[in-house]
Every structure is written in structure tokens, then in C-alpha cells.
């Protein structure tokens, strides 16, 4: 399990984040660590840097963590969360430019095969290549 890149799903909605994680687990199984978060610090729609930091740490793998996001604030907050990590971990976390549901499934599928973080990110981002 620690041989696979971890996946973090960050949506403005906790329901979307959880539903995406459920789909990933059903399609890819439990070989890949998947963590998710959604909602602002009050529990409303939005994203929270501290929840994203927790999710990254939950999905942590020595091979790194790929983050999938929905809208702009989720991306900005995810980038901020990466900078809040301890320095040794920062370079091992990437935010993928990919649609959240399809990207998470594709990234997790690639991760399950033991691919590197760069390969996982590239496969997820093929979805937005056009």
C-alpha cells in the first residue's frame, strides 16, 4: 500500500469529495490511499487549508501525493496547503490540472500500478490536454 502514490480529493462540497473518493475506491480498490475533504472552516461550501493539510498527511506515501481539485479556490488553497507542509514533504505533492472525478479515477488507476508521481500527474492531466 505504501508503494502507491496517494490521492487527495479537494472539492468545495464535502459530498462531492466523498462521492468522488467512493468512486475511486470502488474502481481501484484499497491499494491506493485516498483522502478527501470539502467545505470551508465553518462547514459551508468552500475549502479549508487546514483540512487539506490533514488530508495530504492521511494519504501520505513515500512516493508522494497527487491532489485533484474542482474550482479555483480549491486549487489556490491546495497550493497554499502544500507550502504549509514540512519542507521535506513539499516537493512530493502536486496539484493536478484535471477534472476532479475523472482525474481522480485515472490518477488512482495509474498509482495502483506503482507509477511515479510524475506519471500519475501526467495521466490525470491528459484528460485536459485538449
Amino acid at each position, binding site marked *: 500500500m505504501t508503494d502507491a502514490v496517494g490521492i487527495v480529493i479537494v472539492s468545495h462540497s464535502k459530498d462531492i469529495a466523498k462521492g468522488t473518493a467512493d468512486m475511486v475506491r470502488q474502481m481501484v480498490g484499497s491499494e491506493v490511499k485516498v483522502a478527501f475533504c470539502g467545505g470551508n*472552516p465553518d462547514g*459551508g461550501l468552500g475549502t479549508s*487549508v487546514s483540512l487539506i493539510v490533514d488530508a495530504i498527511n492521511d494519504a501520505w506515501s513515500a512516493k508522494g501525493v497527487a491532489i485533484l481539485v474542482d474550482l*479555483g479556490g480549491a486549487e*489556490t488553497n491546495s497550493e*497554499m496547503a502544500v507550502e504549509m507542509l514540512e519542507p521535506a514533504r513539499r516537493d512530493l505533492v502536486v496539484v493536478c490540472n484535471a477534472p476532479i472525478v475523472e482525474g481522480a479515477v485515472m490518477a488512482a488507476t495509474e498509482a495502483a500500478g506503482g507509477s511515479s508521481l510524475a506519471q500519475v500527474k501526467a495521466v490525470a492531466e491528459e484528460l485536459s490536454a485538449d
Partner: protein
Amino acid sequence: MSLQPETFKSLVKVAAERVIASAPELTSLDQAIGDGDHGFNMKRGFEAVLGKLDAISEQPFDEALKTIGKTLVMTVGGASGPLYGSFFLAAGEALSHDKHLPEDIADVFGSGVSAVSARGRSHAGEKTMLDVLVPVLETLKNAAGQPDLIARVSTTAAEAVERTAPMRATKGRASFLGPRSVGHIDPGARSSCVLVQAVCASLEGKQ
């Protein structure tokens, strides 16, 4: 002349209180061209700052600005959290490296503006908070040392926020609206103006 701790404390307090008071206006502006959460988010963030005001005012200025930045990052919840958070974190970082207030205000403010620009991958002219912050920085540079610097900064912020109305958004949620973003003041520019004018008012009250 150097910035006094009690002056710093009162300007942080005034700035936070004015942002909190402007939450309904910010929400209303954001409902027009964004997702309507800017007022709530800023209110939550600056209430958290107010909650730490005593601890913040006991820190050296560089650490105090970083605490404000980190508090905003952790509590605001929208894209404005990392943007404003980065501003204060970078301004605090500049103060940690041989910059002093008030004489280096343009450099310190400029570090914050650069951080916002990098975080948002944006620049002035895209209908964002940078359309207030960048003109304010220009005034801080151009009018440095002038007796009416504070009044000029305040006027600059007020005029700059109005200039965002005819702009078309190309960054952030408002960019989804394309031409329909034209005619509305940018909520992020407005919150930046509120902050800048609050600091100016607080400093003028001390003079």
C-alpha cells in the same frame, strides 16, 4: 519616528473591524459576479485575527504580520484566504530581512503585492484585488516622504476600486461570466480598499 506597538495594535483592530462591518457589502458585490462568499469568508478570517489581537500585538512586527497571514490562510476558506494570507506572510518576511516601518513601507507592501500576484498568477488589469493593491503601491513609492502620503494612499484606493467596474474579469470565478462581469465592482478590490482605507484612517487618527 518609528511605528509604535500600540499604534500597530489599533490599526490591526480598526482594519479587522472595518472588514467585518463591510461583510454584507462584500457579499452583495460577490453575489453579482462571484459565488457570494467573500463577505462571510473575510468576516470569519478577520474575526479570528481579532480573537488573537492581544497575542499579535505582543509579537515583533514581522512575526505579527506572519501570524495575521497564517490566521487568514487557515480560517478564510475561499481563494481570498491564501491571497490575503500570502500578502501578510510576505510582508512579514520582508520585515524579517532588514526592512523597517514606517520608512520601508513601500518595500514591505511591495513584497506583499508580489506574493498576491504570484499566488493568483495574476497582474493588474484583470479585475482583482491587485487593481487596488498595485496603484496603492505606486502611490507609496511616488509620494514617499510627502506630508499628505496617507491621504493620497486613501484616495488612490478609493479611485482604483471604482476603476474595476468597467473591467472584464479574466481571473477567478468572475471570469466565467465573461462580458457580464463588466459593470460590477470587483469584491476583492473592494475588500483591499476597505483594508487600505482602514489603516489610513487609523494612522490619521493618531497624528
